[in-house]
């Protein structure tokens, strides 16, 4: 399929406003079914300053829309509502619990002929799939740290639930950067660290030994350079934990690291081994007599066993390990000291091993293996994600090296792909010499952006073949 995208609007005197969050609320229609009790339905509302009646009105509207669309398809009520000024996204993560996010459409402020500013809403510029995924992620992140709504209801009723929602979303919503959400939010994938077999086996061996020595540990995850190497957690739990680690926890700790303040060489008494290990969660300094041995709690396997775990994140150089321990166990200073003295030296050693091996591999593979293409790859099977378009993620924004218009085309192609099961290929000619190729083979998706002067369809096709042959020669990818 070949499509020609419209030229991008550019103008000198224009002021652009990116999409932003207008409202975010959670409600349960069963909590206030009678008239006059509507307020009881609302479990959380952002912004809180909104007048009560307006809250009730907005919730009521959503309820009505969902109810209305149910008549057409009882199993799949509306997911989003498009209006000129904003777009609303609905999600029912647990039975009768609804989450709604209202996003204001991006705007352009222009001066009309009279010189007066006129606002023009760009209702088609944002993608349903992206923001629906963002909404789903909000829930997943909440669930990771608080467990399911139902579980909280059992534990402490509506009051506790409201309290938790308030506490969590108050902070979390501030970290939502709606203007920089894109295709990667749809995938919500995991970047895996490329590694040779031997080093990988060493890591396996390390993980197994640590789990044996610290016999409290239920699950372990191992990351290097913010990329995953091993997960003892199931895929879906790892997906959201990975998101938390890479977009929140690691960036928060990377700044002091870069500044070189927080990583002095520590001389450990145990075996006199020099190591760089430190806790990213829990106590920042073990020697501190006032140190608290409290770790964040996370909830995993909520579908079946519903486990509540302490999350210990321990890092040495670029290697990070997450140890997850059942919350029925109380973590003591002794345990943390044991962990530090055991894991610290070994992890330091392993981290330098990985680093060395990685640079050897890079040297061997040479510069020709370095991608000269801009591409995004995603595999639904293992959630593996690779992007040469996105810069390193920071706590605040994820930076892309391409124009948002191109990003949007990628999203559009993805929406096309998600409509059918068959393998597909879409080639789009975008503005000024840009070509975008989307390929879908089985569970894999690949998006390539090419910028070649006067390239034709055949040449573009050849280029993509070349890319597949160098970057993806070890997987089954239909041409």
């Amino acid at each position, binding site marked *: 399929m070949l499509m020609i995208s419209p030229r991008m609007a550019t103008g000198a005197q224009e002021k652009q406003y990116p999409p932003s969050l207008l409202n975010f609320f959670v409600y349960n229609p069963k909590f206030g079914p009678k008239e006059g009790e509507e307020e009881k339905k609302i479990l959380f509302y952002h912004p809180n300053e909104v007048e009560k009646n307006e809250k009730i009105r907005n919730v009521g509207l959503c309820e009505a829309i969902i109810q209305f669309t149910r008549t057409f398809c009882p199993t799949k009520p509306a997911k989003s509502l498009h209006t000129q000024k904003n777009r609303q996204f609905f999600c029912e993560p647990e039975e009768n619990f609804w989450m709604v996010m209202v996003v204001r459409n991006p705007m352009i402020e222009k001066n009309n002929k009279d010189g007066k500013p006129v606002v023009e809403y760009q209702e088609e510029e944002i993608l349903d799939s992206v923001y629906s995924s963002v909404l789903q992620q909000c829930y997943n992140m909440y669930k990771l740290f608080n467990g399911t709504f139902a579980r909280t209801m059992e534990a402490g009723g509506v009051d506790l639930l409201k309290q938790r929602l308030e506490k969590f979303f108050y902070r979390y919503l501030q970290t939502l950067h709606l203007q920089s959400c894109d295709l990667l939010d749809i995938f919500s994938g995991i970047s895996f660290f490329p590694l040779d077999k*031997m080093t990988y*086996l060493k890591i396996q*061996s390390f993980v*197994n030994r640590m789990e044996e020595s610290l016999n409290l540990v239920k699950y372990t995850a191992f990351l290097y350079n913010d990329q995953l190497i091993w997960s003892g957690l199931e895929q879906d739990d790892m997906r959201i934990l990975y998101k938390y680690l890479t977009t929140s926890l690691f960036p928060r700790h990377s700044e002091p690291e870069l500044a070189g303040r927080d990583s002095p060489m520590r001389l450990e008494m145990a075996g006199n081994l020099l190591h760089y290990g430190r806790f990213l969660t829990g106590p920042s300094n073990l020697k501190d007599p006032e140190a608290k041995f409290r770790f964040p709690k996370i909830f995993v396997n909520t579908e079946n066993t519903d486990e509540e775990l302490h999350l210990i994140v321990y890092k040495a150089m670029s290697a990070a390990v997450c140890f997850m321990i059942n919350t029925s166990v109380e973590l003591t200073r002794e345990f943390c000291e044991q962990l530090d003295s055991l894991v610290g030296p070994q992890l330091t050693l392993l981290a330098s091993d990985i680093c060395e091996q990685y640079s050897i591999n890079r040297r061997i593979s040479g510069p020709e293996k370095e991608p000269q293409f801009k591409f995004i790859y995603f595999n639904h*099977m293992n959630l593996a994600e690779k992007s040469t378009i996105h810069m390193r993620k920071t706590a605040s924004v994820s930076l892309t090296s391409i124009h948002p218009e191109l990003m949007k085309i990628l999203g559009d192609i993805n929406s096309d792909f998600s409509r059918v099961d068959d393998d597909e290929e879409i080639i789009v000619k975008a503005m000024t010499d840009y070509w975008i190729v989307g390929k879908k083979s089985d569970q894999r998706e690949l998006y390539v952006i090419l910028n070649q002067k006067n390239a034709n369809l055949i040449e573009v096709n050849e280029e993509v073949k070349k890319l597949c042959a160098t970057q993806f020669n070890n997987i089954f990818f239909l041409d």
Partner: protein
Amino acid sequence: MSEEHYLELCGNPVQFENASSVNNVFFDEANKQVFAVRSGGATGVVVKGPDDKSTVAFRMDDKGEVKCIKFSFGNKILAVQRTSKSVEFINFIPDLLHLEYSQECKTKNASILGFCWTNWNEIVFITDQGIEFYQVLPDKRSLKLQKSQSINVNWYMYCPVTSVILLSTTVLGNVLQPFFFRSGTMSKISKFEIELPGVSKPAKLSLSERDIAMATIYGQLYVMYLKHHSRTVNNPGAEVVLYHLPREGTCKKMHVLKLNTTGKFALNVVDNLVVVHHQSSQTSMIFDIKLRDTDSTLSVHQPVVPARSIHPYKIPLTGPAAVTTATPVPCELYSSTWSVFQPDIIISASEGYLWYLQVKLQPVVNLMKDKGKLMDFLLQRRDCKMVIVSVCFQMLNGPDKSNLSVIATVFDKLNQVYKEYLEAEQSYTMAVETGQSRGNPAQKRPVRTQAVIDQSDMYTHVLSVFTEKKDVSHKFITAVLMEYIRSLNQFQITVQHYLYELVLKTLVHHNLFYMLHQFLQYHVLSDSKPLACLLLSLESTYPPAHQLSLDMLKRLSTANDEIVEVLLSKQQVLGARRFIRGVGGHDNISARKFLDAAKQTREEMLFYTIFRFFEQRNQRLRGSPHFTPGEHCEEHVAYFKQVFGEQALMKPTAS
């Protein structure tokens, strides 16, 4: 209490008539023969060898008391010494005269201390004034002096395995002069001095032959010196000092074995272990010079395990001497009548028994707690395989289960030996291949010792049994399997696919699919067709296995047919066609298979496309779009006509 006697006497001793006033008993270390000489030989000489068949009996005239009696190799010539001046010879070669002939020592006034056969017809006389090397000419019934050397000799010692004779010289007796004999030549090896604990004054002979023994340990000749210390605060006891005696170069003091006690000792060497018997405590201890505690050139060793007595022994009923005895009689161990010979022989002349000393490995296992050290020990032993295997199995099971780092150490030790063997085997194969073309002499094929525990041994005896166990956690099973695979990889040994299958089955059995997925993602489980097929079979329980399997088949690059089959079975007919065309195999594929699959999709246009594709192929290959009868596509042609009409068939183009 578990069995702890790690030494035992062999069950089938050599029996001979016990020593008495009328029966003298001699032992020849070279041929391991016991001579029972009755009445100076007049009433018979019975020679018992290591096995029953080698018994020889004969008579000889009583010409005085026999001092020494020995056969040459192969029982060809008998030498008998009765006086200190001469040795008598009797031919045992058929067709040669059986009459005695005699040879006096050449050196005047010298007295013969003894003699040693170094070949079937070569003999060395050792006198108090030197050594004389003769060739015996049995047909002429005479001897010819080959070489001699003058030197004052206190006593001598012979190691038949290496053909080395050691002479004790000087007043103190502690300067030892070795000679080496080989096919008619006698060569002197540089002499060396044994360090004595203290010098007695006035100077007198201070080194007794009782305190010296020679034996080969790990293929090297060692002179073992039993050094008695007067017990002081600093000296906790006696020690055995091992001097390495190389064929060339100088003798070096290499190892010190700490006995930590004093008293009367005797030495044996069994399975490259030095066994030190201590008479007063009636125990023995074992030392392994390969188990190093320190890295210095001189290694000091402690006993491998605590000292224990030899396993209680009962004189067996069988054999001619024991017929009348009703019950087996317990044998007195460490008896003062015992004589100990190298390397592993214990003789009780008074009872008429010769035993070989044996080491039992299982009791050592019970006594040694450090599994890494135990493996080092076991890997050097001759019959170690089943013991090692059972240690591995116990290490993974039951209450004495080891932790993973110990398991890793053990696996690494096993694979180190395994790898060395594989490398030797490989270089041998290479040498044979290149040697044949260049005409080089053939290299010796490496011997596979029992210490080589390969993957199939581990799989059969340890891993497959262990993974079947119900009471072991799957986490531990997986960890152990991964540890073994890691170790194999570390030594660059190609992992056999059955190990991967074991991992896969274990993970699948416990529904650990995501774990499996990650292993495959990092190619920890190497690609193979069997593994790919196994994955395919998992698809119904774990859908991603389909993708994993296809990826694997793709990487194998020899499995294109399988890929087509998989795609067709998924009704991805176009995908299959694109794939096979991409790899250039579309001229050889079966049209029928594709058409079958296309028909099953019930998509008429798809069927049309595929049908047309093959018509075009036929045209290109054979000049006609028609299918040949061999392709069995009649049914599909009929279907095509039925759906699209006869006129839709491709017309042959005249070209």
